[in-house]
């Protein structure tokens, strides 16, 4: 039913390009993972402004330290999650130097992240999105993150409306499969 599937560039390939100074690869990783980083920030720090600062700090950290990423030790998502937690701790220490103002809270103790600590969270969704084919990720990104209607997506991509509707369904099903069975999804990529 669909045309040839364009495979997504893997996170690990993107971080290798970041290590070479390729800021477009950084931009792609930002699109894939800024939302779970931000969600972790709001959960841990309880402050939207600090969560945005955390996003900046985390992505600057991967820009500077991309060369030290070792795919043999952890996935990119796990590596970024650790960076995010460490930067959140740093931000929290800095915040504690000054007295709390109304509405601010100390670092919250929460579970989550890419480790199998509980239910599905934003990290799992981001990682699953990075594993599905590009054309599927594109329709989901445009619909859910950019708020485009199916008709607007059709206009933006130049793909017929009927195909966009079917592709959205296929993408949701594929994302679900990638969430519940990531190993199968990985092998499908090979």
């Amino acid at each position, binding site marked *: *039913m669909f045309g040839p599937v*364009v495979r*997504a*560039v893997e996170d690990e*390939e993107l971080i290798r390009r*970041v*290590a*070479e*100074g*390729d*800021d*477009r*690869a*950084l*931009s*792609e990783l*930002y*699109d894939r993972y*800024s*939302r779970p980083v*931000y*969600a972790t920030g*709001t959960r841990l720090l309880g402050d*939207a402004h600090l969560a*945005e600062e955390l*996003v*900046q700090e985390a*992505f*600057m950290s991967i*820009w*500077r*330290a*991309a*060369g*030290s990423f*070792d795919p043999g030790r952890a996935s990119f998502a796990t590596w970024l999650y650790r960076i995010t937690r460490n930067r959140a701790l740093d931000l929290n220490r800095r915040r504690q130097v000054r007295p709390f103002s109304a509405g601010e809270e100390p670092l919250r103790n929460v579970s989550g992240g890419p480790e199998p600590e509980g239910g*599905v969270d*934003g990290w799992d*969704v*981001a990682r699953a999105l990075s594993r599905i084919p*590009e054309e599927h990720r*594109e329709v*989901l990104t445009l*619909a*859910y*993150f950019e708020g485009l*209607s*199916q008709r607007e997506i059709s206009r933006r991509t*130049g793909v017929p409306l*009927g195909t966009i*509707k*079917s592709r959205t*369904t*296929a*993408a*949701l*099903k594929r*994302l*679900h499969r990638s*969430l519940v069975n990531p190993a199968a999804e990985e092998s499908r990529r090979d």
Partner: protein
Amino acid sequence: MTEDRFEQLLGPYLLGELTAEEKRELEGHLEECSGCRDELARARKAHDLLRELAAGGLSPELKERVLARARGEIPARSRGGWRIWVPAAALLAIAFLCAGLLWTITKDSSKGISLAATAPSSEGGGEVSGEVEGGNLQIELVVWGLPELQKDEYYELWYAKEDGGRISCGTFRAQQAGKTTVNLTAPANAVSYPQIEVTREPDDGDPGSSGEKVLIGDLRRL
């Protein structure tokens, strides 16, 4: 209901984009088809998670701030040992700034580096000049006579090494007639790369180079 029809309706149903008639059609089918209800439940799970992830309210300007900061800084290239490299990076940054300054001083700013056309664009040409400002390399690129692009293509300027290492300076489209001037930015360490290239890129989401060079220049001639 055919499978194709079901596929057309399910995603838009979850997104609230069906007409009243389409909605009645789908819901009528769901009442009598347990397999499709299972499909709906799985798709709804993915839909709910995406909605939750999208609800964060991340400001669009934040990405530009992150990328602007990144372009102003030099990424580490080695594995591990970052503590050793912090002072080294500072020295390198100074060296790059000096190199950039030297580059700017030693050439006539009205003349850049000439870019020669590769075979597919034999009538094309270009000239690039630049200077280091605040840790970034500000580049002015003038091109002419480049091949006409398709709707989903663009040109990209790169600093490149023989081993395949590349730094992207940004993308652009060119006018078909006359000269096109674009201003681009690269990290200051780009001046240490020996070659400069303009490639033709498909808009396929892959940030890597297509390798389809249309203009090339040799920075070692400086």
